[in-house]
């Protein structure tokens, strides 16, 4: 068991504006594990949207604005895998020509932990309160899978929750079609990928699916709302919060 | 400009562009042996069995025999398949015993291709060749065609019969080329042949006999065993 008592939460732009509940649930889960969560209020975005579109200078400007926000040597927990990969792998590349910022970026990269990874190493079976049987699928974003192996942490984590039956949809490792501005520049191709992903999720027989990536969730849920189904994707933090004995859960009871 | 001066101009331009780039230190020469999987055995009964199993997996037919009996095996094969004309090269290690094995079926490849083409393409049922060595890992044959055994001998006839000595097996292609120091001198055409020719170009359905031989028979001579005499 790790013993950090404090962590930073880097919530990401998508969580802040479009999926704040996921961020709130992540905070509650982390607190239930006994850590104090600091949320630097000047944080905005990791810069990924501009970076992957080919506007590295703009991405650099945004990333640079984050570098001074995490002064304590605490882990930086990121509840969105592809953003975690951005901090871990691409920030050092962005500042390759700027020695001072490069050193900062590398130090931050070393402290960056994806949410599932962090929770997996600290969660004890005794903390699980709800064991209602549920059939679940796990969707992992591609960059989180390939840059951070988040799918493995996610599976380990779900395996610790009694009652959860994890299903594996067809082509589980394939992209959901989001890909940032790809979804806007090539909407038909993106939509075809998303439709196939949803077909596979629905065919798996899962009651809901979870993901640790908010970009994918926005994409998949945005398309699911156009389908005659109640199936929805949930951030894995929200699912965990519903299974653990957390402060928020008690208050709501 | 003539084509040659045109080519020289292009050469100069291409090399100049390459040289104009900022130089980068060349990485150390790659260590090939360290990156390849550990070798299996290259000799012994297990290696021979592995080779044969692998070659059969590629649809080659493998017939094991001894240094004394291979001509009889060849004769039986020719009879069983109804071969009327079997082509071979003169002066090879096999040549002396081929008349005994094949009789009137035997044809020698002793004209240049240009003159021989019509018959080679239309009137030969099988080509028989020696083999420089076998590769256990993949069930492959290494052929080095030469003045005695032209390259079309193992290519144009619909059946290729290859006589392989078990003593020439190597665990991998890499081991073989390093041990035999191929880099010091290659023939005009060195070949690794694994099974008969094939294609899957129509709906991924595998079909044997695309443009090369439709069938490959490996006569595997066990010259690696004690008491069975000299290599064939």
């Amino acid at each position, binding site marked *: 068991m790790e013993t950090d008592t404090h962590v930073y939460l880097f919530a990401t732009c998508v969580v802040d504006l479009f999926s704040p509940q996921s961020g*709130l649930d992540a905070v509650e889960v982390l607190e239930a594990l006994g850590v104090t969560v600091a949320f630097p209020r000047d944080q905005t975005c990791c810069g990924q949207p501009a970076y992957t579109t080919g506007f590295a200078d703009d991405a650099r400007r945004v990333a640079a604005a984050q570098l001074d926000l995490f002064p304590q040597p605490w882990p930086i927990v990121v509840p969105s895998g592809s953003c975690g990969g951005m901090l871990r792998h691409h920030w050092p590349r962005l500042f390759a020509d700027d020695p001072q910022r490069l050193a900062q970026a590398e130090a931050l990269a070393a402290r960056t932990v994806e949410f599932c990874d962090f929770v997996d190493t600290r969660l004890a079976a005794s903390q699980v309160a709800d064991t209602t049987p549920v059939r679940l699928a796990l969707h992992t974003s591609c960059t989180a899978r390939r840059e951070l192996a988040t799918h493995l942490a996610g599976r380990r984590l779900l395996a610790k929750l009694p009652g959860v039956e994890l299903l594996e949809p067809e082509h589980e490792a394939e992209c959901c079609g989001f890909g940032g501005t790809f979804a806007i520049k*090539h909407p038909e191709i993106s939509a075809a990928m998303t439709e196939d992903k949803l077909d596979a999720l629905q065919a798996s027989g899962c009651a809901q699916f979870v993901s640790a990536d908010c970009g994918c969730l926005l994409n998949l849920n945005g398309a699911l709302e156009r389908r005659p189904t109640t199936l929805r994707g949930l951030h894995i933090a929200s699912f965990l919060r519903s299974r653990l004995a957390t402060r928020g859960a008690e208050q709501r009871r | 400009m003539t084509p040659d001066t045109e080519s020289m101009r292009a050469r100069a331009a*291409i090399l100049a562009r390459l040289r104009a780039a900022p130089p980068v230190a060349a990485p150390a020469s790659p260590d090939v042996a360290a990156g390849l999987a550990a070798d299996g055995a290259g000799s012994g009964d297990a290696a021979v069995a592995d080779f044969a199993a692998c070659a059969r997996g590629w649809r080659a037919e493998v017939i094991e025999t001894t240094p004394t009996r291979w001509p009889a095996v060849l004769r039986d094969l020719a009879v069983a398949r109804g071969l009327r004309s079997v082509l071979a090269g003169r002066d090879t290690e096999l040549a002396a015993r081929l008349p005994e094995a094949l009789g009137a079926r035997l044809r020698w490849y002793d004209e240049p291709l240009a003159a021989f083409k019509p018959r080679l393409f239309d009137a030969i049922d099988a080509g028989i060749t020696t083999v420089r060595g076998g590769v256990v890992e993949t069930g492959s044959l290494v052929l080095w065609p030469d003045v005695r055994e032209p390259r079309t001998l193992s290519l144009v006839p619909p059946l290729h019969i290859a006589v392989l000595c078990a003593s020439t097996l190597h665990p991998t292609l890499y081991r073989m080329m390093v041990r035999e120091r191929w880099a010091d001198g290659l023939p005009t055409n060195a070949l690794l042949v694994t099974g008969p020719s094939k294609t899957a170009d129509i709906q991924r359905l595998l079909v044997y006999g695309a*443009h090369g031989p439709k069938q490959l028979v490996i006569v595997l001579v066990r010259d690696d065993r004690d008491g069975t005499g000299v290599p064939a």
Partner: protein
Amino acid sequence: MSGDRQPRPQDFKVQSRAALADPALRASFRSAMDFLVDKRAAQFPDIGAYERLRSLGTRIREHALAKLPELLERLEQNLTALGVQVHWAETPSDANRIFLDIAARHGAQAMVKGKSMVSEEIELNREMAAHGIDCVETDMGEYILQLDGDRPSHIIMPAIHKTKADVSRIFAEKIPGSAHTEDVDELIAIGRRALRERFRDAPIGVTGANFLVAETGSLVLVENEGNGRLCTSVPEVHVAITGIEKVIERLEHLPPLYTLLTRSATGQAVTTYLNIVTGPRRAGEKDGPREVHLILLDNGRTQAWRDQRFRATLQCIRCGACMNHCPVYTRVGGLSYGTTYPGPIGAIVSPHLLGLDATRDLPTASSLCGACGEVCPVGIPIPELLMRLRGAARRRPAPERKPLRDEGAARSRAETLVWTAWALLYSRARLYRWFSWWATRLRRLTPAWQGGWTRGRVPLRPAPRSLRELLAQRRR
């Protein structure tokens, strides 16, 4: 997509939309790609061994590229000593002129050709036909496409978009005297028979080369059908054409690259033939070409090479694994790209061959999922290269840096402005807080139409309160 209108990279969006709307095509690509993905996976059961082999292959290619000018000269020296004539071509038309000159000197009216992507790149068949020379494809897949006036949709399995029924129809129409059949063995037998006399009679054989070995002056061809061997053995003249990047330093570098190539491409441990050609027919030999020519083509490769950030593009050994694993390629198929090299590798190679203007939609046609980079047997960081090309297509060429061809061609004032505004907003915390406060309050004013996003999804709408506000409330 057969017929007169050839697909073009400029029309990628139109072509890919048409392909997406063809359910039969999509199903056939999906099942073909799944098949190849599974076959490849079965060839690399041990991840540790695969990673060792792949890092060896990567190092061999990096090493060769680092020494490219030196290796090319060494290759040329060794080839010349063997009696091979080496030609250099900067452009496709240079290369075609060399072919025409060789054909003219031999009075050749016909050529037989083994599978060669570089010959597609220079549109050799069309150029030769324009000069009355019949250049016959002999790879079964390529032959089928040539008969039908179609193009390859995959670099390894060119006719993957054709069905048995298509081939049956094409053969019945185009090969005189062939019986109508949908039996694949019979169809291949028909192709074999039809091409056999071409092999016998053609004065010139044309091939590509998978590798060029500098230390021995060898051309290496990898194939299953035997047509490559026939092209390099039967005609009196053999002309090989390939890109300057194909050279490797030593013969012992070949086995690891060969096994990476065959396993990644078709999931085979080995192909039927590995054909190593070292010089023309020697004294006393009864067959083999009396003349061997090698044409080394640049066509944009030096542009990729001279910029360290793009050099890895040239590590490619043309296995096609990146396209087999690409969710975009799997859905739109190879013809949509309108380039010789489709899929992820095509998207990073084609901008150097054709310029960033014609190919501007190719680097963006990727969700950057990373599957291509993961399976590349020689470690090309394809997603990173895609991002760099996106950047190069959108930045103003700087005078101090040698630009790529058509650098900045996709630059638009609107897009640049959007990202400048975005960077301003997200790099100033107070401005962002002000923005998010208003965005959440005015969420009902979010437009219902949001460009490509709402084509298949409900509109994006900010939450009623941002996370930072919710957390602030919670702490109170």
